[in-house]
């Protein structure tokens, strides 16, 4: 089997423009591997200048989010058999982000939005001797929220985030925001909500649902955004 891999290449110090570079790879038939393994193979056998991020290579660290044949995903858990169409694979960096080099993007704005939602527990009650307890039911409310690995696949698939990455928190940040809004131990609900009430932070979500389609952890940021809207409604009516 011959596979044509086209990879987005750009090194701002050397190239004037980004371009797609072709790599051709021969496999024994029926071979399958993850996209990340393929990148390593190309890097080791054909082109050692190829740059990409990766760390855990098992879908836990969130560092190898990229655009795989048009859909954002984690290269390390995306098998070729699932994405290759007509023996062709196109790899690009996460859309809408400034490119540092090849598949490596600058995540500064993404993290800035994350920072804005105060991603930590705020509690103004006296610190208990041991720990802050939670009932199993309250703990269950965090399921589907805490699993986010901040890979940015969702936010960089969201048109609203493409247009206004400085002002719209984006699906990843909002999912995390709801993770703390829903936490029974957090006492800053009012403050958190008032930080989200402008026309951009939350309300730029137009329900396009790209975020839900791409999340490699199967999470549902759009649902969390709906919950935040509901809380804002409760709070101010």
């Amino acid at each position, binding site marked *: 089997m011959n596979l044509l891999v086209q990879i987005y290449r750009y090194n701002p110090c050397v190239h004037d423009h980004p371009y797609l570079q072709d790599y051709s790879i021969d496999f024994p038939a029926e071979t399958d591997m993850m996209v990340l393994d393929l990148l390593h193979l190309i890097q080791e056998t054909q082109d050692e200048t190829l740059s990409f991020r990766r760390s855990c290579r098992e879908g836990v660290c969130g560092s190898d989010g990229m655009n795989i044949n048009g859909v954002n995903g984690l290269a390390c858990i995306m098998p070729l058999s699932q994405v290759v169409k007509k023996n062709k694979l196109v790899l690009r960096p996460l859309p809408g982000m400034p490119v540092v080099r090849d598949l490596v993007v600058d995540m500064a704005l993404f993290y800035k939005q994350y920072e804005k939602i105060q991603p930590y527990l705020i509690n103004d009650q006296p610190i208990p001797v041991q720990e802050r307890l939670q009932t199993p039911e309250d703990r269950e409310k965090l399921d589907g929220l805490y699993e986010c690995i901040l890979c940015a696949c969702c936010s960089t698939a969201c048109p*609203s985030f493409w*247009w*206004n990455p*400085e*002002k719209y928190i984006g699906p990843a940040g909002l999912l995390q925001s709801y993770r703390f809004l829903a936490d029974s131990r957090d006492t800053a609900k009012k403050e958190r909500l008032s930080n*989200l*009430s*402008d*026309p*951009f*932070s*939350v*309300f*730029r979500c137009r329900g396009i649902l790209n975020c839900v389609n791409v999340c490699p952890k199967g999470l549902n940021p759009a649902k969390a955004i709906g919950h935040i*809207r509901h809380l*804002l*409604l409760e709070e*101010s009516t």
Partner: protein
Amino acid sequence: MLNNATSLSRSGLRDWLIQRATAIILSAYFIFILVYLFRHPHLTYYEWHALFSNTWVKIFSVMALIAMVLHSWIGLWTISTDYFIARFQGSKAVYIRLAFQGFFALLLLIYLLFGVQILWGVSS
């Protein structure tokens, strides 16, 4: 940097609610008109005139008109702050955005004034 000075209510939630409420009024109005048209397949000028002479129909129509203006403004404001931003048009963005917003603000205002005048002008 964008701010919210030209948004309808400056509050995301309020804009969002107004957008929903006006959508409901508009759909109700269009359903009302469509049903009316269906039940009067050979509509004459006199029937049409009689319909709009009814005070309740006038009130409903003006409500729908206002709803249309508010609904459009929120939508157009959102479009202008999505697509006419410094990332795309650089320092010119603010002028394009203001021109776009100004044009549609004027247009919607004209719609509103004309609409009210026409609707209220129908003799009973």
